[in-house]
């Protein structure tokens, strides 16, 4: 049978069998509603409480500071809209970055259409926001800064603690209605996270990026921070998110968080070693490649590479037909090109943005997996380059410059 290698863990991860095992009873006999007073309800309530404790431990928070939601997207919506609506009397200015996930970008855009002002900070070629830019962007009517902890396409880790420091300084100067949110959906389970050290007020998480099922996320809201609930009509999650709790998913998320905390160092070490081996292999075997994002300040599982002269989607399908799953940030639809806004924000030209491919490893990716990819990838790139007019032109120009060869 053909080998199958999944290198798209930034899109989603497989569910850990230990997580499945933990959640199964809550899909079968332990079906109670946590709001019910009887034993069935108490059993479910206890499970939710325990899971909340485990997720809180993953990020160094108090359990009551966590709100379970349906996804990372919902966590981002709740954080940004919740703060924006609550703080509207004090100002309607939001600061964000140019490389946020669509679930942050989309909410900011929607608020913009309703009268909020949004400042989108650029990133350098390394994919990092400059703290000085944040400082310069803060205005008296700024109520929210939302900048992701780690980027989903290139994995760069933003200077969140430094930005928090700025925010605290601002507050000391009397700017009391200013809050700081960070989207940690990609970061969780791939780097140590401690909300006290990060100093943020709100932080988004999603279960399916750390070996729990899809459909469960959480928003950390520092004690004392008030936000306008976006889901109304029930007292769940201390009135901040109505709706009967998704008990099996919450239990699964708790278990996954527990495992992520226990195994974090080993996972990081393993993924980083394999990722670095992969990148060395690519650099040795393939010419005209550009590695995107800061070399050190980035998540250990991810590698984003632009292959000159070709387009990422062709490479994706080529690899897929050989059992290798990766992803691109660009989408070409109905004749309009949308080269990855993230790669474009690094200042790369359109060809490099279109040629960018994301390889994201998981805790169970093996050396054999990487070797197989290193065997297949150079041929796939070469076969696409052979039919590329850009490549032929470059070859021609090179031959002209060195006529002796």
């Amino acid at each position: 049978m053909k080998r199958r290698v999944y290198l798209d863990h930034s899109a989603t991860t497989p569910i850990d069998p230990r997580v499945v095992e933990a959640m199964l009873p809550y899909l079968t006999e332990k079906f109670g509603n946590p709001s019910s007073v009887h034993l069935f309800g108490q059993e479910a309530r206890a499970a939710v409480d325990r899971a909340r404790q485990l997720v809180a431990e993953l990020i160094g928070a108090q359990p009551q500071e966590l709100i379970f939601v349906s996804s990372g997207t919902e966590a981002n919506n709740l954080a940004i809209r919740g703060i924006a609506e609550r703080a509207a009397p004090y100002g309607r200015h939001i600061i964000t970055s140019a490389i946020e996930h669509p679930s942050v970008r989309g909410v900011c855009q929607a608020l913009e259409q309703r009268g909020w002002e949004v400042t989108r900070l650029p990133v350098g070629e390394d994919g990092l926001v400059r703290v000085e830019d944040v400082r310069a962007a803060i205005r008296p009517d700024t109520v929210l800064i939302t900048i992701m902890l780690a980027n989903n396409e290139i994995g760069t880790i933003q200077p969140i603690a430094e930005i928090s420091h700025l925010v605290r300084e601002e507050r000391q100067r009397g700017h009391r209605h200013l809050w700081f949110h960070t989207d940690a959906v990609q970061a969780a389970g791939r780097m140590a996270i401690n909300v006290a050290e990060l100093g943020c007020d709100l932080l988004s998480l999603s279960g399916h990026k750390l070996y729990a099922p899809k459909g469960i996320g959480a928003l950390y809201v520092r004690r004392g921070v008030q936000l306008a609930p976006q889901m109304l009509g029930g007292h769940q999650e201390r009135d901040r998110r109505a709706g009967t709790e998704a008990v099996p998913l919450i239990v699964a998320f708790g278990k996954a968080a527990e495992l992520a905390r226990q195994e974090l160092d080993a996972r990081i070490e393993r993924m980083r070693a394999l990722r670095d081996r992969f990148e060395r292999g690519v650099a040795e075997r393939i010419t005209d490649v550009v590695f995107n994002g800061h070399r050190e300040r980035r998540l250990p599982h991810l590698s984003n590479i632009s292959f000159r002269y070709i387009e990422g989607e062709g490479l994706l399908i080529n690899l897929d037909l050989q059992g290798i799953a990766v992803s691109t940030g660009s989408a070409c639809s109905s004749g309009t090109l949308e080269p990855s806004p993230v790669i474009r924000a690094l200042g790369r030209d359109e060809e490099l943005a279109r040629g960018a491919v994301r390889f994201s490893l998981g805790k169970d990716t093996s050396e054999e997996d990487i070797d197989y990819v290193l065997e297949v990838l150079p041929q796939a790139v070469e076969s696409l380059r052979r039919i590329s007019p850009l490549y032929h032109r470059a070859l021609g120009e090179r031959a002209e410059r060195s006529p002796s060869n």
Partner: protein
Amino acid sequence: MYSEIFKDHLTHPRNAGELADPSVVVEESNPICGDRLRLALRVCEGRIEEARFLAYGCPPTLVCGSIITEMIAGLSVQDAARLTRQDLLDKLGGLPSRKMHAAALAIETLRLALERLRGD
């Protein structure tokens, strides 16, 4: 999402490259998405003897380049001029609607090549 024929052409493109003694070479690009297709034809006594392509862009553009060279090789110039986008789509087993522009680019490039041939 894509047909078997499509995948086959993507992984094994036919007639890729340049021609040593082409009768005509044209390169067209889709101004909106930047996809490019280059066609080179060698024509002898009103018949397309050989066709080669180079393509850059999304997979349907690459595949349409490969398929169209197969379709026109051996055809008379008049018959080649009658090929439509639908003929191309039928041959490759359809395309998602948002990728239709790839077939349009291929037919457009062919038309242009044949026009230029007549003009010479």
